[in-house]
C-alpha cells in the first residue's frame, strides 16, 4: 500500500492550500477533473478550497477518450462519457486534476480537449501520485506523492465515491520474458 485513507486526505488538503498560494485571485480559478477518478479528486479539492478560503470555485470534468492518441491501435472503440464544463475557461487559471501521472499522454489529451472550450490564462496540473516514466515533456505543479515505480508496475487508486474506500496500491508485476 502506498497511501492510506489519512494520507489521501492530507495530500488533498495540502494541494488545496498550495493551489491557493500559487494563484491568489480565486475569482479566476477553476478546477477540472479528468474522468474517471480525477473528477472525484477535483470535487474534493473544490470542497477543500471552499471550506479553507470560503470561495466558490467552478468545477468541471473532462472525458479525454476522443483525444487519445492510441485510438487507431487498441482495436476497439473505448466508451466515451460525457464531459461537463458549463463555465467559460477564457482567462481562467484551470487546474487539471488526475489520479496518477504516468506517461503524460492523458494530460496531453486533456489539454487538447480543454482548449476546445476556450483560452485559459494558464493550465496547471495536480495529481495524487506521480509515478514517473514520462513519454512527453509534461510535469505536475502539485503532487500528492512521488513514487518510484517500474514501467511494468501498476498503480491503483481507490476512492470512496467510486470504490468504497480511499487507498493507493502499488502492484508489482514480474516481467514475463517472451
Amino acid at each position, binding site marked *: 500500500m502506498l497511501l492510506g485513507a489519512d494520507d489521501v486526505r492530507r495530500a488533498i488538503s495540502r494541494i488545496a492550500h498550495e493551489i491557493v498560494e500559487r494563484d491568489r485571485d480565486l475569482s479566476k480559478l477553476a478546477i477540472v477533473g479528468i474522468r474517471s477518478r480525477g473528477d472525484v479528486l477535483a470535487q474534493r479539492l473544490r470542497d477543500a478550497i471552499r471550506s479553507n478560503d470560503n470561495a466558490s470555485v467552478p468545477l468541471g470534468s473532462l472525458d479525454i477518450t476522443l483525444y487519445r492518441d492510441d*485510438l487507431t491501435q487498441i482495436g476497439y*472503440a473505448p466508451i466515451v462519457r460525457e464531459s461537463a464544463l458549463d463555465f467559460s475557461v477564457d482567462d481562467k487559471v484551470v487546474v487539471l486534476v488526475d489520479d496518477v501521472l504516468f506517461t503524460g499522454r492523458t494530460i496531453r489529451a486533456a489539454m487538447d480537449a480543454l482548449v476546445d472550450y476556450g483560452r485559459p490564462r494558464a493550465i496547471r496540473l495536480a495529481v495524487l501520485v506521480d509515478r514517473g516514466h514520462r513519454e512527453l515533456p509534461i510535469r505536475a505543479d502539485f503532487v500528492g506523492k512521488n513514487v518510484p515505480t517500474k514501467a511494468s508496475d501498476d498503480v491503483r487508486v481507490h476512492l470512496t465515491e467510486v470504490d468504497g474506500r480511499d487507498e493507493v496500491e502499488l502492484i508489482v508485476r514480474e516481467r514475463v520474458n517472451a
Partner: protein
Amino acid sequence: MRWSRRHVLDTDDWSAEEIEAVLDTTGAMVEVLSRPVRRAPPLRGRTVVLFFAEASTRTRVSFELAARTLSADVVNISASGSSVEKGESLYDTVRTLQALGGDVVVMRHSSSGAPYFVSERTDAAVINAGDGWHAHPTQGLLDAYTLRGALGDLATKRIVIVGDVVHSRVARSDINTLVPLGATITLSGPPTLMPSAWRCGQSPAGTTYEPDLDRALDGADAVIALRLQKERQEGGLLPSLREYARVWGVTEARVARMRPGAPVMHPGPMNEGVEIDAAVAHGARSLVERQVTNGVAVRMALLYLLVGTPSLEAS
C-alpha cells in the same frame, strides 16, 4: 460493453445493450457539439465516403457534419451527375469506392438491401442511411435518443406512429429500436398503408394496430407522424390529401388527447397541413428541431464506434 459490430445495416438484430451503448455515446457527442470549438480528433486521417444514390439533403448534411466534427475527410458521391447516372452498376461503384480507400461508406439507396450487398464487397465499414422501404437505422436511433431525453426511461411508455407505415423505413427502424428499450408502439394510419399482416393482428412484437387515430392517441406518451409521399394518392391508396389530413393528420385537438406535455416528432421533411398541422409542427411540444440536432450526434457516435472496430485496421 465492448462494441464489436463492423457495419450498421439494420437494428433488427441489436440487443438493448447495444442500443444503449450508442445512446450513451450520443450523449457525449451532444456535449461535444455544445462546445465553443465543435471539433474533436478521433477520426483524423480517416475518410468517410457519402454515397447517396437517392435524393437526400438533410441526412447527407447531417452525416457530413458528423464526420467533419470528428475530423474525418469527407468525399461525396451522389447519383445524379456521377457514373451511376451513366449506367455504372452498383458492383462497379463499390469497386471504385474500395479503390478510393474510404474507411466508412455511408450509403442511401432506393433498393432495399443494397447496403448489405456493398458491405460484403468492401473492407470499409458500411452505414445504412436508408435503403428502400427496409431500414433507416440512424433515424430509429436518433428518435430513441430524442424520446429518452424527453420521457426518460422508455419502459412502460407508449408511442404512437401514424401514417404510411407500409412504405416507411423510418417506422420499421423506430419499431426495431424502441421496442427493445421497453416501449410499446401503437401503429395508426389508413389500412391501405399498413402491411396486410400487421393490420390483421400479426404486427411485430411490442406493437398493435389501431385504425382510429383518436383512440390510438388517448393517454399516449408521444406521437411520431410519418411523411406522406404525395404520389401514394396517385397510386389509388388514398382518396385525397384533404381526407387524409382530416382523418390521420396530427392536429392540436388530437395532440390534446395524449398525456399532458406529450411530445410530437416527425422525421422530416414535413407536409404541413397534411400529416401534421403547422401549429403542432412549430408548437411547444414539437421535438422536430431537436431531432435534427440529435441526428448529428447519433451519427457521430456511430462513426466513432465503427472506426474503432478491427475491420478498419490492417486485417
